[in-house]
């Protein structure tokens, strides 16, 4: 559960977020919106990577501004857009960093079991001993996500996790996130650009435009032409294939 109350953010004269208030329940929530809508800024504020200028954000009841770092790290894990790991690390070591908030670097048997599970979960077991700088972009992205998963927190904030992933792994990741959220009652927020991934795999959609909240609702109620036009600024057709709505945004 994430509660955002009256959050505004500006950089100099540029107002990036304007009085955002919303609450995000457990399940997968897609954060969408056109470029420059303030999605990444909102994510960074929730992940305490930027200092709050006004308003408050609570994750699982803990205010992000005042809760001590280690406690927060056991509550929420994050994936940044374009994470460049400069260190020369093996995949297993990288994923193992997810256990840092729990064991401060001294891995015990339980940690190792969870690392193995995360590697398995994200199809990285065969790559476990590879150095991260020898991986492809998509493989590295998966390793970063596995690290966030390995942190074992009930809330995950993933900024564009589908970057660099091919169709197979993009679909695979979204399905996994959905399953994990359902089975373990996690709150997972993902910034997505592909509206159809959001439509198929997210329980809820939060949409921003020009720093304002446009809509925060169940997926089915967002994927209607009027709402989509209000978010993205041009009309798009929505058809139903099987049981799920498909947005023809590219036509």
């Amino acid at each position, binding site marked *: 559960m994430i509660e955002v109350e009256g959050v505004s953010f500006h950089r100099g004269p540029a107002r990036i977020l304007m009085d955002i208030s919303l609450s995000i329940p457990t399940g997968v929530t897609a954060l969408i919106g056109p470029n420059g809508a303030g999605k990444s800024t909102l994510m960074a504020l929730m992940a305490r990577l930027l200092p709050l200028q006004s308003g408050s954000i609570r994750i699982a009841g803990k205010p992000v501004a005042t809760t001590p770092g280690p406690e*927060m790290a056991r509550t929420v894990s994050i994936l940044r857009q374009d994470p460049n*790991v400069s260190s*020369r690390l093996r995949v297993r*070591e990288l994923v193992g960093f*997810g256990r840092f908030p729990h064991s401060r*670097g001294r891995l015990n048997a339980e940690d190792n079991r969870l690392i193995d599970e995360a590697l398995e979960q994200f199809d990285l077991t065969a*790559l476990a*001993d590879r*150095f991260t700088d020898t991986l492809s972009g998509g493989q590295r992205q998966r390793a970063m996500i596995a690290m966030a998963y390995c*942190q074992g927190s009930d809330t995950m904030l993933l900024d564009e996790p589908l970057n660099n992933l091919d169709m197979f792994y993009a679909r695979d990741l979204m399905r996994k996130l959905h399953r994990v959220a359902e089975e373990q009652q996690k709150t997972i927020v993902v910034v997505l650009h592909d509206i159809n991934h959001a439509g198929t795999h997210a329980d809820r959609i939060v949409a921003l435009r020009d720093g304002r909240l446009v809509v925060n609702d169940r997926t089915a109620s967002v994927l209607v032409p009027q709402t989509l036009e209000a978010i993205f600024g041009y009309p798009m057709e929505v058809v139903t294939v099987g049981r799920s709505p498909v947005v023809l945004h590219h036509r």
Partner: protein
Amino acid sequence: MAEAMAGTPAPPHRSRRMVVATCAIAAAVCALFLFTGLRGNIGFVLGLRLSQLIGLVQVAVSIAISTVVFQTITGNRILSPSIMGLDALYLFCQTALVFAMGGFGYATLPPSWKFFGEVALMMAFSTVLFLPMLRRRTDMMLMILTGFVLGFLFRSLSALIARLIDPNAFAVLQGASFASFQSFDDRLLVVGGVLTACGTLFAWRVRHVLDVIALGRDAAIGLGLDWNRWVTGLLLLVAALVATSTALAGPLAFLGLLVVALAERLCASQRHGILLPVAAGVAIVVLVGAQTMARMGFGSAVVVSVIVEFMGGFVFLAILFARRRG
């Protein structure tokens, strides 16, 4: 091909063996330094050499640790404290102190007081100057450029002040800034030794935190570190260690870079639990080895820094070529 080769898993204890091997070689080099070519009053010569060895080891360890930590907080493996002008800053602090207190006042201060004054001054300056840059890990090019400019600024300021002070004070300053490997001030050795030992112990204690800091600001915060507090603390540690080594041996531009690059090659890991001891070991081997060579092969005509820079240049070229081929 390259991927497949890089992907071959190394046995996990290889790195640990490397730590043991480096320490053993370092110990052997130290023994060589102490016991070769003993002549005359053996007790006296050994005592002299022992104090020299303690000084060299201090310089080596503090340069190695400070460079590793500095590279970790700046997030790249090309910077070193001396490239960023930290040792120039130290010399500037020294000059400023002579200027403020006058030559006589400075010369009559007890060395440990002087040393702590300079260290404190340097810590304050480096926090003010470098912290804003490190907080957000700005562009590396910008940092290198800033480092060069700051280094140049401090050297010029030192030169300016040196022209302003009276000749007596200038002589005092000259004596203070040209430290060498031949003789170390015993009182400084004790103070520096305590500082180096504490700094090294601290770096070792936080080696896991350093691993996380190497991942970058966002990942480190995500894993629960208070980034600003850690970077400030570690920068102060680097400043103290650089001050120690510069106070003992004067500025050594190349050693830190050389030692850490070598250590990284050797242990194929950036885990600080391995990198810190290997870098310290390599630094001891290089510095004490160079001093031994200087004594045995070249008489006292060749300065150690020349040998170190020569070896440094050689190894750097080797690394460059290896990287091009690999």
